[in-house]
């Protein structure tokens, strides 16, 4: 109990420090209060937006788009990465495309997707999937190439046919890399999605909420929206990826915690 309290205090303390600094800047800094609202304004705005259901609706829409798009990109990326890692022709063919496409920010494709697919959910989801696929492909490919030759030999000596080899040796062997790729892909999906929601005039979503607040200089609404984005991102990392890791690669001793 005492321990839990201490560790809670340790987590809260930095935020208190930042809050105090923020408040000091709010009171003494060069910005007018409308542009640099105090902590109390931000918190009360947050509570109000949650209470009247506005924030939850925007957040849920954004999360739904994120998940659908990300799953699309993840499946595509893992499959492409495995094929690249196992077959020389696929590697020769895809590596250059991926290595040029990967550094291009996903957002740069946004106008193209809008031109092609119009506005709304479809281009947003497709773009999120497209952007998320790159890090997944690159990491899966690297992971498959890093699967120890001795595992493959051992499995082959026990008579494993190609499809079993994929499922039972190559995929779990590459999993530490695949997980890293998925994590990077998700972060990228987040970034692209928020930007797309800002730019392509969808009518709901956290990005839209933040961007729309600009019209009326509602800095408090923007900051409340940003806080939600931070919390959702943190929750996905802690509740999904860290758990996934604990149950697989950490449990298997392939990755230190």
């Amino acid at each position: 109990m005492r321990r839990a309290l201490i560790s809670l205090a340790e987590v809260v303390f930095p935020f208190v420090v930042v809050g105090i600094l923020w408040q000091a800047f709010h009171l003494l800094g060069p910005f007018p209060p409308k542009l640099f609202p105090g902590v109390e304004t931000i918190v009360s705005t947050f509570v109000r937006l949650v209470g009247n259901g506005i924030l939850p609706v925007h957040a849920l829409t954004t999360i739904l788009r994120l998940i659908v798009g990300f799953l699309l990109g993840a499946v595509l990326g893992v499959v492409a990465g495995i094929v690249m890692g196992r077959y020389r022709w696929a590697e020769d063919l895809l590596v250059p495309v991926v290595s040029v496409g990967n550094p291009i920010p996903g957002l740069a494709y946004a106008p193209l997707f809008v031109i092609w697919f119009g506005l709304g959910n479809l281009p947003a989801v497709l773009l999120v999937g497209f952007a998320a696929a790159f890090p997944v492909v690159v990491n899966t490919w690297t992971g498959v190439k890093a699967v120890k030759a001795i595992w493959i030999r051992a499995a082959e000596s026990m008579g494993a046919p190609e499809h079993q080899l994929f499922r039972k040796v190559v995929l779990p062997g590459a999993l530490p890399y695949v997980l890293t790729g998925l994590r990077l892909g998700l972060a990228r999906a987040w970034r692209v999605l928020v930007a797309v929601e800002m730019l392509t005039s969808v009518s709901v979503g956290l990005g839209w909420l933040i961007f729309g607040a600009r019209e009326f200089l509602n800095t408090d609404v923007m900051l409340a929206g940003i806080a939600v984005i931070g919390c959702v991102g943190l929750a996905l990392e802690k509740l999904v990826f860290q758990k996934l890791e604990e149950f697989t690669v950490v449990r298997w001793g392939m990755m230190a915690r």
Partner: protein
Amino acid sequence: MHHLELRSITFEYATADGPLTALRELSFAVEPSEFLCVVGQSGCGKTTLLNVVAGFLKPTRGAVLLGGKPVTGKGFDRGIVFQDFAQLFPWRTAQRNVEFGLEMKGVPRAEREEVALRFLRLVKLEKFARSYPHELSGGMQQRVAIARALAYNPAVLLMDEPFAALDALTREEMQRLLVDVWRETKKTVIYVTHNVAEAVYLADRIVVLTPHPGTVKAQVRIAMPRPRDTLSVEFLECQREVVGHLGGR
């Protein structure tokens, strides 16, 4: 008919300066339930030889016959234990590692578990069935690897210096255990090592290889009863004989 026979195996590696002969005209046979050790200095082609028998490498000339039939490629009929501890699949528990070969054969789950546990018991690891490889010591991991290579009942067990990376005390313990396992299962074993004392302790017969290219220098039969006393005059005589073949021309 021999159980396993190597007929004038020649193996050449392709290098930048043309082919390099690793094995030349190598022939010997192994009888059922025989424990055969192949001894030679590092780089004499021992591992190449084992990889040829395993089917990972295709001999440039010659053939490997198992039960009179030539073997091509990999198959269920040969089990392998490597030197590297990392050969176990880290994402599977000890028991699931041992089950792998049976899974590939399509053996139903209940039977798989039973067989796996039986072989883990044989290597005295039944208590660690649910442990993951990284939770086991090096010696224990090698025991799991032995159980795994035996569990799907291959006709021959191939071992590539499986204890070379272990400390001396563990190695001795493992050698005793291996002899027990071999007597229990009556498996045909080809065991590759550079350690002469180990070979004399384990083998029914020792094939001595000389390097560059690898050829059979001599074959020494070890008739001593088991368990063998490593300090007996007889043991040391055998050891001297094998070392003589290795060193001399």
